Each structure stands twice: as structure tokens, then as C-alpha cells.
């Protein structure tokens, strides 16, 4: 094997792949070949770099040049300039959104500076389709250590002492969970990895599976050793074809290398892993529903207890953890529980991966230590609000979470503080909203999601959420009354109190938190019949300002329903009866003559 002087890492995450990163790899390789640089430069397709906003991303090592928005045709220039002549391709370099200066080194990009990568340690570093690269990064060393140097009880003890809590949402201590499953009697037990990431706007689990699948496989085997299970199952969304492909490759390689299968490391511990596919049901993130789904049934949750740790898959003790939780395991084993516990806060240890999206400059996947503030995330890592708009809210925890405001920006992020603020950690979605977002509509958006995803088993969730959404709809149409708010409040309370599973019990969070934090907006919609964000079509009207209108006829031509009348060089008028409030005229007018009331 030649010693490559340069590595070119190309992001192979779903975001970058969908903007032609495969073609970029191909072109780079062709250029390398054409210049006889095969032994000098190596192109590696890695997992997600996280900075999806800027995709496709190409990194050139060793100098760590960070190229963004790369197109396949840029390959020639990268090889000719950067590799052959040693000059960075400046136009492709990331530019700091504030200074607008190119930044050469990804380490100096604000997006990465505050991050601490444990879960994502290998994402964007190794080739996920090559087990040896994972091993070279101390992969499977933790499994070796567990099998040869530690008893199952000691493994559980390490996980307990690390303070690791479930990253799937509720934050149950992982070590305790393992302990319960280990204590459940029975020769047949299962380790399940929940990879049914369903939050709209969350893609951290997928990124780990795509970028570092072995970290999950290794951790599942460790868990199997700790609880006494020899079968593992990964329940993954069928909508994640690339993660599935990489997992399949990883499982096959691990089996070939004897790191999965019979008598691992020559011990009497055996462990295999199978894939089970989800089919688009958010509720299957709930562990009992997930288990029913894996058994080939409708993914309806059942009442706990019995907990899966006692009676789960096929009625056998089953330990369910999510992808991110598993990805933390090997580093904890290798570096020790004290190291892990030194990161984060008193009650929430380690790091958390968030999918940062919405009206923010740097959309992407970030991993930060627990205890970081929302302000740091939004303004330092996220680079602030897009188009210099005003920050309004940040929604955390997916559809079950709540909308937090300005006043929560300095709250350190922990499981408990987020709940206290009316939201939750959830699986880690973070959507930033600005002044153009109507909070009543946002609440309705989430409720519509819950209505769509409710399994229908229990009445409060099946019907209650539908009614919540209908009342919100009424308010956004200007037909709400103040009594509706009382009805909303009561219904939120009752649904939380009575719904069967976590999905239902948390579904009113977006309504409750917006009622709490954006009360004025609700009242405006109801009393003043106004939507300050101009989002609610029934509450806004488009007018043409006669002062500014030049009679250019552009708006009239573009209006899809012919609601604009007016002769050339004459002031135009919008017929309110015909107007569908599509906003085309506003976008078309070059003279700022169209306005909204």
C-alpha cells in the first residue's frame, strides 16, 4: 500500500449525496488517474460532516481545507490547483458568514469550534464501508476489553458510573436499563437498536449509521455481553436506504472478521445482528410499538409495565437503546466512566447530537457537550439567524417538544432544564424560527403531524389531537374565540394525563408551550384577527399602494387568478373577492407597491 500524502474526504451523507457527491468522487478519481497521482492521493467517501447547509462538502487533508458547495465539475480544479500546484481553490473555501472571508481550515470554522465529538468521532473521518479504518481508530477494542477483562456486571457498572442516559428522548439511565435486562431471567434475550428516527427535521441517528456503523454494532455486542443476549436487531427506517446499505456492509465485514458471530475473540460469547425495517410510523420510536412492529404487527404501543426489559421481543427480555446512545458506549469503555462523567453537567453527562435546522445560517448536525446554552448553539455554531431576521423561537424535541424563546436562550441544555422550560430533549431536533413564523401555525403544523402519526389506539390521542388541530385551524382562520383557548388548555392537560404512550402524552407540548410563550399571538389571531407573521392567509389582505404603483402590469400578468385589474401606467387594484393570497404579486412587484395588512 502506498503512503498517500493527500486524502480527499468527500461527504457521503444523504444530504450531500443528493447533491451529487457520488459524481464528485468519480470525477476526482478520474482526474487523479489522468495525472498519475493514484499513489499520492486517496479519495475517501465518509459519513456526514454535519455541515449540511454547505453541502456537498469536500475536505482535503492534511491541510484540512474545507470546500463547500462543491460541484462535480470542480474536481479538475481541486486536483490541478490544490494537489498539483499546492494552491487552495479559494472560491470553494468556506466563507465566514460574518466577515465574508474565506476560512482555510475547518477547525477555524465557528460551526465546528464549540463542538465536541464523541458520538460523531468517526463521522467524516473514516470510510464507513471499511472496517479496518474503524479498527484503526481503536474500533472493537472496547468489545475486546469487555470480553476479556471485564465481567458483565463490571460493564454495566461502568455504564452506570458514566452517567450515560438514553438519547432517544426521555433520558432513562442506560446502565440501569441494562441492569434490569441483565437481571431478567432467561437464556434468550435481545438487544434492539432503535434507528426509527422519525422526527421531522432530525437526522442524527442516520448520520451515525451512515458515517460510523461499526460504532453501533460494537456497542450492541457489548450490550449483549452485559445483559446476556446473543441476538441483536436494528430497527431502521426503510426511508434510509444508504444507512441500510452501510449497515449491511458493516455487518458482513464484522462477521468476516469474526467480530460478530460465534465465539467472538475466541471467547464463548456469540452475537449476531439482523436488520428489521420500519415502514413509516413515527409511533414506532416508542419501544413497545417498535417491538410489535418488529414482530410483524401494527406498531401500536402497549401499556408498560411489563417493560421490554422483562418481556419484549417475542416475549423475551429485550433491551432497547437508540443509535446515539449506543454510539457512546465504546468510548466510555475505553476512556473510562470518569472521563465521560467529566463532560456535561451534574445530571446530564456527555454530549448530545442535535440536528440544527430552520431559519439559521449553518444548518447541520452538531455535537455539543451537555450544558451548552441555546444562545451558543444558535449564534456561535449556527452562525445566527438567516437573512439577519429576528430570532423568535427554537423548537426542540421534535413534534413532542416545545417552542422556547429569547428568555430560554441562556438556559444550559439538560434533560431536566428543557422539560422545566416546557420542551424536551427528544431525539435532538432543533428548528429555529424567525419573525416570519406564526406560532399558532407552527403549533398547528406539529399537531397535524401528531394527528397523522397517531396510531389510533387510545381515544385521547386519536380524537383529542384531531380536536386540538381543529381548534388551532379555527384560530388561524380568524374564527377562534377566547373560549377556544380555555378548551385548548383543558384538552392539552387531559391528553397529557390520559394518553397511552409517550407520543400522545407529549403531543400537546407544542400547543402548551406556544400558549405559554406566545399568548399575545393567540389573542391577536382571535381578538384582532391579525397574524403578525402574515402567515395566516385568512387574516391577511394584499393591497397595492397607489403611491408606488407604476402600472407596469407585472403583477397583473403573474396573478394566477386574474384578481388584479388596471391599465398600463395606471394604478392597479386587487379584487379581494378573487384574491387567493398566494403572494405572487408581492414577489413580482419591483416597486414595493404591494403590501399586506
Amino acid at each position: 500500500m502506498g503512503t498517500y500524502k493527500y486524502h480527499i474526504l468527500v461527504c457521503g451523507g444523504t444530504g450531500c449525496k443528493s447533491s451529487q457527491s457520488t459524481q464528485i468522487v468519480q470525477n476526482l478519481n478520474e482526474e487523479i488517474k489522468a495525472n498519475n497521482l493514484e499513489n499520492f492521493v486517496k479519495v475517501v467517501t465518509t459519513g456526514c460532516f454535519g455541515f449540511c447547509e454547505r453541502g456537498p462538502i469536500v475536505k482535503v487533508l492534511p491541510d484540512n481545507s474545507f470546500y463547500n458547495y462543491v460541484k462535480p465539475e470542480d474536481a479538475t480544479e481541486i486536483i490541478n490547483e490544490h494537489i498539483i500546484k499546492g494552491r487552495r481553490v479559494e472560491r470553494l473555501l468556506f466563507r465566514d458568514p460574518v466577515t465574508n472571508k474565506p476560512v482555510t481550515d475547518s477547525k477555524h470554522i465557528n460551526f465546528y469550534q464549540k463542538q465536541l465529538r464523541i458520538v460523531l468521532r468517526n463521522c467524516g473521518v473514516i470510510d464507513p464501508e471499511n472496517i479496518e479504518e474503524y479498527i484503526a481508530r481503536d474500533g472493537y477494542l472496547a468489545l475486546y476489553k469487555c470480553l476479556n477483562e471485564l465481567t458483565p456486571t463490571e460493564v454495566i457498572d461502568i455504564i452506570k458510573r458514566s452517567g450515560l442516559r438514553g438519547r432517544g428522548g426521555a433520558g432513562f439511565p442506560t446502565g440501569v436499563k441494562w441492569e434490569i435486562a441483565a437481571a431478567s431471567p432467561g437464556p434468550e434475550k435481545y438487544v434492539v437498536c432503535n434507528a426509527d428516527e422519525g422526527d421531522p427535521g432530525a437526522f442524527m441517528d442516520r448520520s451515525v449509521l451512515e458515517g460510523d456503523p461499526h460504532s453501533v454494532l460494537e456497542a450492541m455486542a457489548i450490550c449483549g455481553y452485559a445483559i446476556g443476549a446473543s441476538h441483536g436487531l436494528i430497527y431502521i427506517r426503510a426511508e434510509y436506504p444508504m444507512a441500510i446499505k452501510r449497515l449491511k456492509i458493516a455487518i458482513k465485514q464484522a462477521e468476516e472478521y469474526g467480530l460478530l458471530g460465534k465465539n467472538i475473540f475466541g471467547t464463548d460469547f456469540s452475537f449476531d445482528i439482523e436488520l428489521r425495517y420500519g415502514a413509516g410510523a413515527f409511533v414506532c420510536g416508542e419501544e413497545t410499538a417498535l417491538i410489535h412492529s418488529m414482530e410483524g404487527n401494527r406498531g401500536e404501543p402497549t401499556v408498560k409495565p411489563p417493560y421490554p426489559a422483562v418481556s419484549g421481543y417475542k416475549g423475551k427480555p429485550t433491551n432497547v437503546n437508540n443509535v446515539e446512545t449506543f454510539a457512546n458506549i465504546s468510548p466510555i469503555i475505553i476512556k473510562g466512566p470518569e472521563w465521560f462523567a467529566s463532560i456535561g453537567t451534574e445530571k446530564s453527562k456527555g454530549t448530545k447530537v442535535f440536528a440544527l435546522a430552520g431559519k439559521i445560517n449553518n444548518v447541520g448536525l452538531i455535537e455539543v457537550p451537555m450544558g451548552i446554552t441555546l444562545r451558543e448553539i444558535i449564534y456561535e455554531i449556527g452562525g445566527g439567524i438567516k437573512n439577519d431576521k429576528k430570532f423568535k423561537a427554537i423548537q426542540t424535541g421534535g413534534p413532542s417538544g416545545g417552542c422556547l424563546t429569547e428568555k430560554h436562550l441562556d438556559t444550559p441544555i439538560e434533560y431536566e432544564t428543557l422539560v422545566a422550560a416546557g420542551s424536551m430533549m427528544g431525539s435532538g431536533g432543533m428548528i429555529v424560527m424567525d419573525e416570519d413564523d406564526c406560532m399558532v401555525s407552527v403549533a398547528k403544523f406539529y399537531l397535524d403531524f401528531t394527528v397523522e402519526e397517531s396510531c389510533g389506539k387510545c381515544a385521547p390521542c386519536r380524537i383529542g389531537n384531531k380536536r386540538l388541530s381543529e381548534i388551532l385551524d379555527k384560530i388561524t382562520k380568524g374564527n377562534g374565540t377566547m373560549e377556544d383557548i380555555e378548551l385548548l388548555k383543558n384538552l392539552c392537560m387531559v391528553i397529557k394525563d390520559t394518553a397511552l404512550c409517550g407520543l400522545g402524552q407529549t403531543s400537546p407540548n407544542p400547543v402548551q408551550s406556544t400558549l405559554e410563550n406566545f399568548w399575545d399571538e393567540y389573542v391577536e389571531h382571535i381578538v384582532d384577527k391579525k397574524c403578525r407573521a402574515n402567515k395566516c392567509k385568512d387574516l391577511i389582505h394584499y393591497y397595492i399602494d397607489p403611491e408606488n404603483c407604476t402600472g407596469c402590469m407585472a403583477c397583473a400578468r403573474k396573478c394566477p387568478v386574474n384578481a388584479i385589474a388596471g391599465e398600463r401606467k395606471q394604478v392597479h387594484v386587487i379584487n379581494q373577492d378573487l384574491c387567493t393570497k398566494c403572494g405572487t404579486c408581492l414577489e413580482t412587484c419591483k416597486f414595493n407597491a404591494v403590501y399586506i395588512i
Partner: protein
Amino acid sequence: MAKITSLDDLRKIKKNLEEQISLREKAENPESLVQIKVGMATSGIAAGAKEIFTFLVDELEKRNIPAIVTQTGDMGYSYAEPTVEVKLPGQEPVVFGWVTKEKADEIIEKYIRNGELVEGIIPQNYKTIDDK
């Protein structure tokens, strides 16, 4: 592929790939490393920068000094070419001019290993590409 059954097996694979992976690991953490840039614009190459570059890469590796050697464009000191910029962890970068193999050897042994200053430093406040 023979199955991995021992720690040694794991270590063997790790060793095989060490070089490649360390390249990436170093890049992840450039602050802790010696960073060397060789001015390799056309004029630099003509003045022998390529040999210097290869020499530095090979020798640092041989002498087991963790460093990142990269090429860079014209540094703006064509009079002093070949030029080499060395940035020790936590220190300001220093640029050496008229670098020969012997000089390079001296830079490695004295400046990089022991932090002793070596003749040939261009004291000018130049601009790095980052500041353009």
C-alpha cells in the same frame, strides 16, 4: 480474511492503517501539531521547493515528529525562495527563507525539536492566505 481472535490481530490492522488514519486525526486536531507549509508556487518549485517538501515529509516521518506538511501558494517572498513556514503549537508562525536540504535538517533538529531559533528567518509581517 482470517478472523480476528486476539488483541494482536486488532493491533495489526491498526498498525497497517496507522499512517493513513493519523493523517486524518492530525487534521482534526491541527493545533497540537507542528504545521509546516512549503511555498510552492511556480517560482518556488523552480527554486527546488518540491525537493524540500519531499525531504521534510520523509524526514519528519523518519524522525517520528508528528507534523503536518502542506504545500501552499506563493508566500510573497520570491526573493527568498524556497520558503518554509513553521508553526509550533501555541506559537506564532515563523517563515524561513532560502531553505536547502541542510537548512531543512537544521530547522527540524533545532527549531522544531528544541525550539531554538535558526538563522534565515524572514522577520517581515507577511500575510497568510487566511488574511487575504
